[in-house]
């Protein structure tokens, strides 16, 4: 009885803003969007049919996959490198850690503003640098082929330092005896890293991997600032498309169907995490 009373305030809010909207998304995805002349009516799978036939939806989904593929391995690799360096005997590692971690604290929108300036054609830093080598000016964010990679770079810059601290924590728990044993056997550093450190970091890598995937479907702030999904939807990710459909075209029925796809994707990955955490608990 007391238990429920303690839980009640949180439960009400969770039910109102997590469980109800999740179910309502499913429900509303079967309805048409209300128009001034015509109220919302049951349309069955029409929204989903429209979705399958919507080339933008597929493009956006593809973008999101590319975005994940572009950001995640690179930021994880960089994070490991950073952690190994900051954990080692490199001179000035306090400053290095500061430099790597600071982007994590900045708002994504501020980061996007700063990088927007970098990419500005003509007088942005990137164009000035390429100008030094005599290359012509390039509209980095306005060209289909370079816009998404530009956003990927920004995301890597922002996330690698965040992932670094998890690796740092893991590295600090690696027993120094392992180092000594390996040194006795004459193992090189690279060999030691591949055979000892990296396998020991595996649980951390899995944990980061799942979180990074979820993040790649959840973070769209930089798109609003830098490209607004353009050019030609080349940089629109799924959540950004939902925002566009739901709050610019006010097509809430279709937005509900799109949201449901996003929820299914997130749930699938979270299930993976759940199973993984379960396993880790057993192993401990």
């Amino acid at each position, binding site marked *: 009885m007391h*238990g429920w009373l303690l839980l009640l305030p949180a439960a009400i809010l969770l039910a109102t803003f997590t469980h109800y*909207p999740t179910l309502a998304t499913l429900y509303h995805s079967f309805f048409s969007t209300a128009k001034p002349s015509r109220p919302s009516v049951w349309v069955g799978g029409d929204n989903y049919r429209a979705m399958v036939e919507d080339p933008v939806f597929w493009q956006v989904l593809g973008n999101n996959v590319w975005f994940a593929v572009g950001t995640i391995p690179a930021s994880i690799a960089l994070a490991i490198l950073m952690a190994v360096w900051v954990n080692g005997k490199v001179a000035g590692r306090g400053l290095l850690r500061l430099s790597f971690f600071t982007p994590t604290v900045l708002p994504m929108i501020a980061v996007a503003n700063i990088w927007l300036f970098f990419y500005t054609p003509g007088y942005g830093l990137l164009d000035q640098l390429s100008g030094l080598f005599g290359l012509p000016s390039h509209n980095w964010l306005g060209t289909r082929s370079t816009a998404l990679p530009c956003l990927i770079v920004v995301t890597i810059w922002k996330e690698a330092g965040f992932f670094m601290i998890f690796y740092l924590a893991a590295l600090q728990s690696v027993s120094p005896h392992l180092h000594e044993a390996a040194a006795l056997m004459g193992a090189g550093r690279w060999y030691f890293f591949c055979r000892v450190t990296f396998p020991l970091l595996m649980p951390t890598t899995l944990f980061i991997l799942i979180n990074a995937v979820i993040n790649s479907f959840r973070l769209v702030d930089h798109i609003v600032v830098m490209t607004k999904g353009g050019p030609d939807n080349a940089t629109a990710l799924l959540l950004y498309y939902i925002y566009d459909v739901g709050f610019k075209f006010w097509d809430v029925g279709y937005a509900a169907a799109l949201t449901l796809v996003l929820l299914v994707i997130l749930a699938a990955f979270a299930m993976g995490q759940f199973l993984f955490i379960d396993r880790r608990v057993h192993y401990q």
Partner: protein
Amino acid sequence: MSRLGRSLETVGAWLLGLLWALPLAYAIWTAFHPPQFSTRFALWAPLTLQNFAKAWDAAPFARYFLNTTLLVTMILAAQLVLCTLAAYAFARFSFRGREIAFLLVLVQLMIMPDVLIVENYRTMSRLGILDTLGAIGLPYMASAFGIFLLRQTFKTVPKELDEAARVEGAGMLEVLWKVYVPLARPVYVAYALVSISYHWNNFLWPLIVTNSVSSRPLTVGLQVFSSGDQGVDWSIITAATLMTSAPLLVGFLLFQRQFVQSFMRAGIR
């Protein structure tokens, strides 16, 4: 590994460090120099605070600062209270449906309010609180992450302490306040830092539910300001950008260790 290899590694580490610091350093350079130096590097370029003054005058940043401060405080206060109570229930009470209730709480870890924008907007509009700070904060106040984190911590509190306090006649909430909360202090600090940085930086949901100066947080205010049609120049935008991130940035520089540890603690559990 040879000495050469080591020094190559040091050079590599420093190059990456410099590369990582470059965007922020560049922003700081631009913000503190007159516009004509924003794309030109000259060691003796005059320093100025003009950009900050201009940005401050050009948009109601004082109001935005107030909004964000109120918002972050309100969310954190509500989260601390709600999560503490719920975590206590999960950690130390047995009641019907506890396991299912806990699973239902965990659902929020995968389906974050960030993605339920369409339906939550509908709810806010039905409640008639669109364009208020409450509408920005409400979906985040019951935090599954906070409940989970505190539950784990409360479970490590020895039952004997709990019972001893009860024997002395302390009530349920008194035990919570006098035994559990003090012991969980480091976790509260960690959670608070993560929550503050998250909500100070949050953007998409506030962008959707607000449309006036009186409720806009800094992030949305900054976006409205920098995407204005009047063609604000870059030095001023950069100054505004730094200004909005300054409190977090300064806090981070002062309490670096706590920040890093908090993010670590919050992520690993």
